[in-house]
C-alpha cells in the first residue's frame, strides 16, 4: 500500500470518522481518499483553528476526528491548541504535511517549519514525524490509542521522506 492508504486505513481501524482540513498539495491523496470513501465525513474548513473547533465539538459529541493541514496552516492554530484542545483535554488528531525543509523554495514555509515542533513541545503535545511507510501503521495506531486513553491531542508530521514532498517545490528548485 502507499503511505496515504495505510494512513487512512489506520484512521478507520480507530473509528476516526470526521476529517476536517484546509488543503495542501502533499495532502491531496489523503483528502481524495477521504472524500471518495463514505465511511468518512469530510469538512473543508476555511481555517485550521476552525477545523480544530469542529473536531473538538465532534469528540465531545462522541465522534473521533482529525484535522489535516499544511505546515503554515499549523501556525494559524496555536491559540486553538493552547486554549481549547490542550486544557479541555480533547484527543484531536493533527496531521501536518511538512513544508519548509528538504527542498523548500519558500522562505515563509522554512520559518514556520522551525517553530512548529517547539510550539508542540511547549504545550506538551505528543508529536511524531513520519518518514517511513513501513513504520507508519504502528506509530499512528499506537499514538491514536494513546491520545484517546490519555485525553490529549497528538500530531503527526508528514515528512518529505514519507510523501516525496511538494512536487511544485521540486520543480522550482531544479528550474
Amino acid at each position, binding site marked *: 500500500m502507499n503511505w496515504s492508504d495505510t494512513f487512512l486505513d489506520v484512521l478507520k481501524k480507530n473509528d476516526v470518522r*470526521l476529517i476536517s482540513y484546509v488543503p495542501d498539495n502533499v495532502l491531496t491523496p489523503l483528502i481524495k481518499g477521504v472524500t471518495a470513501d463514505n465511511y468518512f*465525513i469530510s*469538512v*473543508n*474548513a*476555511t*481555517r485550521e*483553528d*476552525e*477545523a*480544530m*473547533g*469542529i*473536531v*473538538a*465539538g*465532534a*469528540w*465531545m*459529541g*462522541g*465522534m473521533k*476526528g482529525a484535522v489535516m493541514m499544511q505546515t503554515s496552516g499549523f501556525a494559524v492554530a496555536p*491559540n*486553538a491548541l*493552547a*486554549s*481549547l484542545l490542550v*486544557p*479541555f*483535554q*480533547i484527543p484531536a488528531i493533527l496531521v501536518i504535511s511538512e513544508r519548509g525543509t528538504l527542498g523548500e523554495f519558500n522562505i515563509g514555509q522554512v520559518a514556520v517549519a522551525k517553530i512548529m515542533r517547539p510550539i508542540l513541545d511547549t504545550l506538551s503535545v505528543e508529536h511524531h514525524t513520519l518518514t517511513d511507510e513501513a513504520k507508519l501503521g504502528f506509530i499512528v495506531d499506537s499514538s491514536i490509542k494513546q491520545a484517546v486513553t490519555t485525553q490529549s491531542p497528538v500530531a503527526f508530521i508528514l515528512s518529505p521522506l514519507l510523501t516525496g514532498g511538494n512536487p511544485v517545490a521540486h520543480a522550482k528548485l531544479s528550474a
Partner: protein
Amino acid sequence: MAELTLFNRTELTMRLVAKLTHEEAVVGGIGNTNFDLFAAGHRPQNFYMLGSMGLAVPIALGVAIAQPERGVIALEGDGSILMSLGCLATIGTVRPRNLTIVIMDNGLYQITGKQVTATGTNTDIVAVARGVGLANSHWVRDHNHFDEMIARRFDEGGPVLLAAKIDDKPGAGQTPRDPALIRNRFMKGLGTGRGGALDG
C-alpha cells in the same frame, strides 16, 4: 431593516433556555455569551468555551455532525463571529439541519472595554449569513418571533441563524474556569462521557 426590538442578552438567554425541552446542546462563546448561559441555569448540555475566541460556532458544528438527532445551539457575540466569518461559509456547505446559531449583536467588544465592532458601523451579519447560503437567517424582530424560531423542531429548516440587536450590558454570571470539569459535564450531558464511572 424593519423596526427591531432591542434585547438584553441575559433576558434573551434565559428565554432561550426556558424553551429547551429536548436536551439540546448549547455552546456559549467567549465572555458574555457563556456568562449569561451559565447564569441562565445549569444544564448538563451546556458548554462554556474559554479563550478560543471565534470557535463557539465551529464547536457547535462538530457536535451537530456527531449527533445529528440532537438540536445544537451556538450563542456567539458579534465581535467573535466577525473573527470567524469563514465558519459560516463552512456551515453553508455542510448544512447541518440541527444547528441554530444565535448572534448577540451589541455592535461592541463589550467585555474588553466597549470598542465598536464592524457590526456597529457597516456589517449586517444576517446579510453575510445569507450571502454564504444560509437562507434561513433572520434578524429577531420581537419576543414572539424569537420564541417561534426556537420552538421549531431543530431538524426543520436548519441550519438557522438568528441575530438579535442587544444593549451594551455585561453578562450576569462568571463561569468557573475549569475546562476539564466543563468538558466532563458536557459529555455526560450528551451521553458520551466516562462520567458516571465514579458516581455512586
